[in-house]
């Protein structure tokens, strides 16, 4: 039946009616903002309204599930993120959708590195210092994160594994209260999203040690990567992009991919996405994006299992 619907929709040139773009997180967050930025551009390019609809809940799963079960006619899109498509399937045991088979991955919008930040009182100037400090005081230091199973948490767990050290994870409800406790020194370190950590790094309220990506960030070019600091192969990026239900017609997927890439590369939108800490993604075609999601899913399911973050 879905196929019949899709073909009926194809009978008229797409898009013939308003498109809805589901943002599975609360309004005002980075996912929502980037969705609204891109929606405004798409609207101009496609000649049809593109309406952003916030469907927060269950770590983003609610909105993603909704779209996975929508007709694949190109009129319902979703912002899929590292949480919904790589972490949650293992973290939550099961999710009501298949992150690979239920979706056409259209275009990657944003890739933001995490950055390892320290409270100013911690006597470590670089990563080897920190590792030595952790070795000397096992279990004495704490790291905060926005929630259990967030990239900040998993980065910390990966760091512990690769360095063979131990520190305690303190989960918060969002990265803002965690940052507050980091500045106040109640937790000593944090793997925070670059965009939210940057102002405090520049103001000297916290000390940055390294970024979690393989490449250095253009925002803090003097800051080394964790790989350069001796953690071979440490690579974590928070990402999200536009996806559609599986079986969305190829022509629609291609058109959307082209328009979205044009949108995120146009001067104004690009600047605004950059303000959120995002570098221009290297992934361009839907196929590359699918392959990327598949590899991320594999990486994180292994990491979540090893980290013990998974609730029993």
């Amino acid at each position, binding site marked *: 039946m879905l196929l019949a619907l899709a073909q009926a929709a194809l009978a008229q040139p797409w898009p013939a009616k308003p498109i809805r773009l589901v943002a599975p997180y609360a309004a005002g967050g980075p996912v929502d903002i980037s969705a609204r930025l891109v929606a*405004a551009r798409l609207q101009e390019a496609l000649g049809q309204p593109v309406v952003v609809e916030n469907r927060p809940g269950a770590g983003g799963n609610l909105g993603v599930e909704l779209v996975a079960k929508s007709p694949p006619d190109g009129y319902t899109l979703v912002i899929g993120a590292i949480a919904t498509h790589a972490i949650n399937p293992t973290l939550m045991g099961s999710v009501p959708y298949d992150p690979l088979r239920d979706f056409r991955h259209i275009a990657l919008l944003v890739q933001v590195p995490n950055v390892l930040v320290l409270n100013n009182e911690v006597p470590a100037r670089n990563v080897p210092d920190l590792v030595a400090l952790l070795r000397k005081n096992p279990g004495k230091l704490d790291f905060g994160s926005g929630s259990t199973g967030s990239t900040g948490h998993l980065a910390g767990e990966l760091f512990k594994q690769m360095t063979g050290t131990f520190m305690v994870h303190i989960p918060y409800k969002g990265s803002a209260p965690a940052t*507050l406790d980091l500045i*106040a020194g109640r937790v000593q370190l944090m793997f925070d999203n670059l965009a939210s950590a940057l*102002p405090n790094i520049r*103001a000297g309220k916290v000390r940055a040690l390294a970024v979690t990506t393989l490449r250095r960030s253009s925002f803090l070019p003097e800051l080394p990567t964790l790989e350069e600091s001796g953690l071979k192969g440490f690579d974590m990026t928070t990402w999200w992009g536009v996806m559609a239900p599986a079986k969305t017609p190829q022509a629609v997927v291609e058109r959307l991919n082209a328009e979205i890439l044009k949108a995120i590369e146009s001067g104004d939108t690009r600047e605004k996405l950059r303000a959120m800490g995002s570098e221009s993604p290297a992934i361009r075609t839907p196929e590359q994006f699918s392959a990327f999601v598949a590899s991320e899913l594999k990486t994180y399911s292994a990491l979540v299992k090893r980290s013990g*973050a998974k609730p029993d």
Partner: protein
Amino acid sequence: MEASNEVLSFLQAIYVNLGIGFKEVFKTQPLTIMGFALTHVPFNILMCLIGVMLGTLIGVLPGIGPVATIAMLLPVTFSLSPVAALIMLAGIYYGAQYGGSTSAILVNLPGESSSVVTCLDGYQMARRGRAGPALATAALGSFFAGCVATLIVAMFAPPLAEVALKFGPSEYFSLMVLGLVSAVVLASGSLIKAIAMVLLGLLLGLVGTDVNSGVLRFSFGISEMADGIGFVTVAMGMFGIAEIIGNLEQKEDREVFTSKVSHLFPTTTDWERIWGPTVRGTALGSALGILPGGGALLSSFGAYTVEKKVSFNAHEFGKGAIEGVAAPESANNAGAQTSFIPLLTLGIPGNAVMALMIGAMMIQGIAPGPQVMTERKELFWGMIASMWVGNLMLVVLNLPLIGMWIKLLTVPYRWLYPSILLFMAVGVFSVSNQPFDCFLMSLFGLLGYVCVKLECEPAPMILGFILGPLMEENLRRAMLLSRGDWHVFISNEKPISQGFLIAAAILLAVIALPALRKKRDVAFSEDGSVQQEALAAEQAAETPKDAVAGFEDDGKSTQKWNVYRGADGNIVAVKEGFNVWAFLFVGFWSLMKDLFLTTMAWFAAFFALMAIGFIWQHWSYETFGWWAAALWLPFGVVYGLKANRWLMDKYERHHYKLVRQVTAKNAGIAIERGRRLAAAAA
């Protein structure tokens, strides 16, 4: 001299900065509207006006909150200048705080968590035909609070941000404990029922994902409940729907309260009653608003609780006491303003609206954080100046609107209630776009109706519901950080946490001690007539001889007390002689006792002396102590000597009658003996 220059340059800096701010707000720019090219358009002021109008509107509509509105308007702000965008969004936020009280007062619908408390007495005032004074009180109280809090933000934002940093998990937990305990102590009806409702609220707050382990609790496999139950859903159901069911049940006197609207503005008596609550509410709201996460929520509950404790009209609370509107409304508006402090100075959002403001700033290419204040002076101070202008606009907008809102009450109920239901459904849906929440709201409506029938108040439940998850989160975080050591809450390294817990323990003792509890019952029980009956029953049971059994004069104490009895059966005791509290706390003492003239006299003297000090430039940090002592001592002596007389005068003005003079060890015994003697004599 150096230090005095420091003070002067501090004031000068604020003066210069506010100048930058107001200049930014009143800036004009060329603009083309529909083909008309205008050269001087005060664009920022215009945005401020649009913001506050929009805010008022969505505040009045039940359920549609500032979060949904700001989210929808975010794309509009892409094309505005950063200052204009933030001024408009901030206007929506505090405009909604104003508007929220309107629906709370008129139709018992709290649109925002802060207006839950306004419902308690605001709606009762409306039922007694006093919706006008209630609305005016809310508007004027909010205006006063807004002005004071804006001044506080302008003067003390950076040092106050440090206060926010001092609040860690253990401090938050202890603050919440204090909040919950005070909710129970001062609930108006039965104590047991209040505790039960708080516990019910705590349990409901547990629904959702556990922060520490990510496990789902009480979600029954419903993924819509994975993030817990929304506040708006619960409040709309428990207050709004329950009220509608209750109204529809009574056929006759449903529309009565619309007909007896007497006047729109507060009377002279009202003015005398609202100034104190407004000042105290503002102080409490400004203090708690600084704390991100739950601080601002507590302020309106806290302000109401304080008023119930200190007010002369405590027996009227829950039945339409104007103090019960003035205090929480001032507190929530003050809190709304000071919650900008952590945002502007640390880049830490205190609530969902502040998180949206961060989003708006990021779109504009401004990284919210400590450097905004120094690098973007025009933005920071422009926003602060706009808050003051916006508050003025709100009061000018809202006072004339009161007449119109009152007219709304004359709409026949058969038209009114379906529209209210519709708006509630829209509002609840707009929070998360889930139809499930509307069903949940209906369920809570039924629960609310059952609670009304069982005479259980929903307000303690709401407080438990809000505080429960925060308490749990902070308790577990504190325990994680301390590696399971419970001393983190009471150790000397945590004086703030320690202080809150001690205060909570004292409050608990107040419930536990029988003599004091008697006092609580007399002072705070809701129904005066019940007390009259109780007194009459006592009178019948006791002969004068053993009337004071257990409370006889022990012959040892020499402290004399004047026992007064109010028209409503409330009994108070005023000491003879020197009042140490008044001596120590002077103006603050009279503020807590609602003594207008003496409070004003003290504050006026304080500010006059400060002004003289600045003009002569003799004031420095070294000599400040001497000046303060010089001011304090003569005032303190006069206040200490006269305080009890002032109190007695105040009681007499409020038609309290002197029962007799007794000697007793403490106020509790004096009151009890006075009460029994009064009963025996009558």
